[in-house]
């Protein structure tokens, strides 16, 4: 099998497994894990948003929690203040996040590397402190609680049913992953890669580097917005604390542990860390020590992340079958 086929088959297998979880888990009496997996799916979208910028365009953002927060508050405020339905609230949240990313991105993508990382943190901190102090609107640290409106009242679909809620989240995430797969193989995705690999060469062949980066930033904000809106609906809760830079930092860690620049990396990284945390927290009071040591060990032994390392394994196998050496371009691409 070629490495691309291996990757496609494993992605389909993961999707199929996830689709079966709400049917399979209750058989083992493990209904608790349905919600854990739903939460993993939501957070993996935030990691996907980091991955789009870092893995595909080469911009390290430490501020994606800002757009997550706009999506989250957009949905929550849409329901509590404007009495919107579920879809209207989601639309409001995602629109708010995308618009914010369009404005912030216009400034942020003028900078790169360390400077870009800092300006994204600064932007997200400004709104974190604003949300903390605007208690009447956002609830500040205490947050906003609400009851989620039905998905489709006529069909009796509501989020209160665990299985329905899982499929609601699963289908939206699936759509995001399909969209992402299409995006990175589209002409725009090629431009992303060109800008990431060599900014000067990209601009010499006529690519507008600034516009390309800005588009990536807006799409990343859109994805983070979906994650935030889903998270608000899933928890029936929104809080300023989810906009803190630490949340953005965790998403960066999930992405790199899973494998930056790979489609499934963010999902694998998020799943590994959240599952590990869930399991360890039941065993040891100071389980975060184990989690910290765990992430250090992963990047020491798999510097390209879990998925990145698996990919290079299949690449090497393909290479030994078909060609004498791995092409340097493939290797260089990963870093």
């Amino acid at each position, binding site marked *: 099998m070629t490495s691309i086929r291996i990757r496609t088959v494993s992605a389909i297998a993961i999707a199929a497994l996830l689709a079966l979880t709400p049917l399979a888990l209750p058989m083992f009496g493990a209904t608790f894990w349905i919600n854990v997996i739903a939460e993993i799916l939501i957070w993996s979208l935030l990691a996907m948003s980091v991955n789009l910028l870092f893995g595909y365009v080469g911009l390290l953002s430490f501020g994606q929690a800002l757009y997550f927060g706009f999506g989250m508050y957009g949905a929550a405020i849409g329901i509590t203040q404007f009495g919107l339905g579920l879809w209207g609230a989601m639309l409001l949240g995602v629109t708010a996040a995308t618009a914010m990313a369009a404005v912030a991105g216009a400034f942020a993508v003028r*900078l790169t590397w360390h400077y870009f990382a800092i300006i994204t943190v*600064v932007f997200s901190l400004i709104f974190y402190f604003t949300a903390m102090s605007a208690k009447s609107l956002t609830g500040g640290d205490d947050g906003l609680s609400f009851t989620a409106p039905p998905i489709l009242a006529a069909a009796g679909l509501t989020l209160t049913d665990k299985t329905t809620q899982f499929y609601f989240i699963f289908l939206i995430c699936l759509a995001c992953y399909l969209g992402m797969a299409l995006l990175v193989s589209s002409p725009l995705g090629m431009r992303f890669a060109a800008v990431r690999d060599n900014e000067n060469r990209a601009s010499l062949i006529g690519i507008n580097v600034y516009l390309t980066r800005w588009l990536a930033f807006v799409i990343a904000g859109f994805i983070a917005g979906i994650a935030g809106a889903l998270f608000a609906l899933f928890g029936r809760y929104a809080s300023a604390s989810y906009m803190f830079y630490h949340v953005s*930092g965790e998403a*960066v860690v999930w992405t790199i542990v899973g494998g930056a620049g790979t489609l499934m990396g963010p999902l694998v990284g998020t799943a590994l860390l959240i599952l590990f945390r869930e399991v360890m927290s039941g065993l040891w009071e*100071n389980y975060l020590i184990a989690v910290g040591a765990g*992430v*250090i060990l992963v990047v020491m032994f798999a510097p390209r992340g879990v998925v990145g390392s698996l990919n290079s394994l299949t690449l090497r196998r393909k290479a030994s079958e078909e060609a004498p050496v791995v092409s340097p371009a493939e290797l260089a691409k990963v870093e």
Partner: protein
Amino acid sequence: MELVVALAINGLVWGLIVALIALGLSIIFGLLDIINVAHGDFFMVGTVLGLTIAGTTGFWIALVLVPLLGLMLGVLIERFVIRPTINAASLTIVTTFGLSMILQESVRAAFGAQPRRMAAPIEGTIPLFGIDYDIYRIFAAAFSAMCIAGFFLFMSRTTLGTWMRAVRHDRETATALGIPVQRVCAFTFGLGTALALLGGAIAAPITTVEFRTGVDILPVSFMAVVIGGLGNAKGTVAAAVLLAVLEGLVSSIADPTTARISSLAVMSIALLVRPHGLFAGATR
């Protein structure tokens, strides 16, 4: 007016302490290209060790011991956590993030989650510009300024300091000239860590001591480093002091959150207008 003066001096005091911490980050980030997400937690460990050691041996011994412990901690961390991933800046984010979790959780396990306060080792106030000001805060500012000056002397006058700059400038030539590059890198990380812990020990009597304080100080020190210009140590100090004084002044007319937001806004404008640091071109 008295309030404005007091808050401006508070800003200056805090700015000098932050400058010390940011200098530590500046050499780790600027010389080694390590995005050290655990730097705030190094500061936190400094406050906790400062309080604990001061409780048994007295504050003055703690002030000497804490940075030495920091140097040892830093060298150990460099050897076992940083060196395996030092070639990729993006991986150092993950290793130092893991480190940050380990440090915070270990402190919480050993020291407890309850925030504590430490009594100032020098009691009393003196009149200053028409207000009564804590003597310890004046001492903290003066001592930080002294340490900063010592740092600059060290970097420009000693062999080790010169080596550190040489490794930053051109690693291969430095190796060819016989500079023990690996040891210099380990020492650089150790010194950066020691500065953060020292900042913690100085700040312990004027701030709350708990396992979470590093989270607030981290973005502030990164901003000082970047706005001052990467690798420009003097710029880092100036940026740290400017930002803290500005925040102090604004907080005399508005609540602390608004002050924080306005200093962040100033920072983003500074970054956009002078993307390579406020003082780019002034020293090179």
